[in-house]
C-alpha cells in the first residue's frame, strides 16, 4: 500500500492556509477539465510537479511513483477510446485485419485520446498537490467552511483516525499469520485472508464499543465538537493563484487546439 499520509506531515507547505492550497488545486483542476488544448494541462502538470518537488520538498521519486498509479486505468481507458472496430478501412490512420473485421485507430480518436490523457494527468497532479501538502484533517476544516454537514465531517475525522488503528491491527495479524506459514500457497492465503477479515471485523466492533465508552466518559452529548488549528490567511496568495489560473486559461485560448494527428 502506498501511503501518502507518511509524507504530508513533513512537507514544507504545511503552514500555508489549507483553503489557499485547496483553492489552487481545485481551480487548476477545473481549468484542466475545461481546457481544449493539451498545453494548458501540461503547464498545470509542470507547475504542480514543481510546487510538490521544490516547494513542498517531497522526494521526486515518490511523486513519480504516484504519477504511475492512475496509468493502469488510463491505459485501459485510452486503448478503449482510441481503438475502434469497423468493417471498412475508411478513416483509419492505422489498422489491421482480424478475420473479416478491421481493428484500428482514427486521427480524431487519437487526438481525443491524447487530449484526454493530458487533461487527466494534469488533474491528477493537482489532486496530488492537495494530498501531499494538506493533511486530511485540514481538508475537513475547509469543507466545514463550505458548509458540508457536521455529521459528515465528524464521520470523516473519526474514520480517518480509525483507519490507522485498524491498519495497525491488520499489519500485526498479518505478521502473526505469516510467521505461522499463513501465506505460503494459494490455499493457505485464501484461508488466512478470510480469517484476517473476520478478526478485523470483530476487533473493529470491540474497539468501537470501547471508544464510545471513552467518549461518554468525557461528557459526549451527541455532537463531536473540537477546536481547530488556526492558520494565517494571505490575500497575496489568493491573488497569485488567481493570476496563475487566468494565465492558464489565456494559454488555452491563444495557443489553442494542439492537434497532433488531425
Amino acid at each position, binding site marked *: 500500500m502506498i501511503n501518502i499520509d507518511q509524507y504530508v*506531515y513533513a512537507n514544507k507547505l504545511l503552514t500555508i492556509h489549507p483553503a489557499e492550497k485547496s483553492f489552487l488545486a481545485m481551480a487548476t483542476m477545473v481549468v484542466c477539465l475545461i481546457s481544449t488544448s493539451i498545453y494548458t494541462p501540461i503547464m498545470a502538470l509542470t507547475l504542480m510537479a514543481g510546487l510538490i518537488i521544490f516547494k513542498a520538498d517531497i522526494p521526486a521519486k515518490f511523486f513519480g511513483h504516484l504519477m504511475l498509479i492512475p496509468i493502469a486505468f488510463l491505459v485501459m481507458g485510452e486503448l478503449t477510446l482510441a481503438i475502434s472496430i469497423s468493417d471498412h478501412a475508411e478513416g483509419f490512420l492505422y489498422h489491421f485485419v482480424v478475420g473479416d473485421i478491421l481493428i484500428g485507430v482514427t486521427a480524431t480518436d487519437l487526438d481525443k485520446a491524447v487530449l484526454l490523457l493530458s487533461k487527466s494527468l494534469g488533474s491528477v497532479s493537482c489532486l496530488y498537490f492537495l494530498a501531499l501538502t494538506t*493533511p*486530511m*484533517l485540514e481538508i475537513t476544516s475547509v469543507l466545514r467552511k463550505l458548509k458540508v454537514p457536521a455529521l459528515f465531517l465528524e464521520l470523516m*475525522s*473519526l474514520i*480517518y*483516525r480509525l483507519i*490507522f*488503528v485498524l491498519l*495497525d491491527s491488520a499489519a500485526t495479524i498479518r505478521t502473526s499469520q505469516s510467521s505461522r506459514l499463513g501465506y505460503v500457497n494459494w490455499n493457505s492465503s485464501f484461508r488466512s485472508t478470510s480469517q484476517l477479515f473476520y478478526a478485523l471485523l470483530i476487533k473493529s466492533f470491540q*474497539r468501537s464499543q*470501547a*471508544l464510545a*465508552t*471513552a*467518549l*461518554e*466518559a*468525557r*461528557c*459526549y*452529548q451527541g455532537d*463531536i*465538537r*473540537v*477546536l*481547530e*488549528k488556526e492558520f494565517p490567511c494571505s490575500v497575496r496568495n489568493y491573488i497569485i493563484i488567481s493570476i496563475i489560473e487566468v494565465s492558464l486559461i489565456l494559454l488555452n485560448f491563444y495557443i489553442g487546439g494542439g492537434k497532433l494527428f488531425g
Partner: protein
Amino acid sequence: MVETILEAEDIEYTYTDGTKALRKVNMVVRCGEKIAVLGSNGAGKSTLFLHFNAILQPERGCIRFHGRKLSYKKDEIMELRRKIGIVFQDPDNQLFSASVLQEVSFGPMNLGLSEAEVRNCVEKALRATEISDLIDRPTHILSFGQKKRVSIADILAMEPEVIIFDEPTAWLDPRHAREFMQLLDELSQQGKTIIISTHDVDLAYSWADRIFVMKQGQVLTDGKPEEVFCQQEVISSADLNRPWLVETHDEFIRLGLLPSSTCLPRNKEELYESLARPCYNVFRHF
C-alpha cells in the same frame, strides 16, 4: 476528618451475558487520597470505575459524590463526568480524534466553555503532561508513551477533582513508568484525588495511601499498605504477590536482623536505613 469525596455503597452489577461483575462493593474515597485498587484480571476493577463515572448504573446499591446520592439525571451525570475523569488502559481505545489539539479540546468543549477558555485548558493540560510540542501532531504517528500522555491530557483538560487510571503502567518501560509515577505525585500535590488500578504490588505498596484488594467482584480487604500486605492469605487468595520490600523486611525479622517491632519500610531507602541503624549494625564495628 477529611471529607469523603466518592463512595460506593453495596453496589452490585451483572453484565448482560450473565457475568456477575460486582457483588456488594463498598469503597470510600476521601479528598486528596492516593488509592490503589489491586486485583487480577477480571476482578471487577474496571467495572467499578465505570460506575464512578456513571457510564454504568448499579443494579443495587448506590454511588455518592460529595455525600450526595446519584440520581442519574442528565445534568448530574454531566457534572459527575466533569469532576471524575477516567484515563483508560489502552490509549488506542480512548483517542478518537486525528490531532492532539482536537483530541484534548473535546472534553472542555463539551463543558460549554468559550473557545479562548478551551484553548487555555488544553494548553495547561499539555504543559502538565509535558507534550506542548505535540499540539499540532496527528494522533496516529505518536509513540505509545506519547499517546498515553495525550490520554492523560484529555482528562486533565477538564480539570477534574478525581482522576481514575486504569492499569496506567501496563506496557510502559521502566523509565516511562517512573516518569508517569512522578506525574501522579505532582497531580496529587495539586490536590487531586487519584485512584489507580494495577497488579504491580511493588508500585502500589510504595505509592498508595490506601489499598483495596479485589477478587471476583468483591473487595476482600482495604487499608493502609502496611496493613493490607500483612494479610498474607488474603493477598495470595487474590492471586497477588507480596511486595519485595515487605517480604525482605519479614525475612530480616525472621533472621533476627531486625527486631520484630520495626515498622514496615515504605521504600528501599527506609529499608536500608533501618538496617544501618547503629544498634543493629554490628558489623560496622568489626
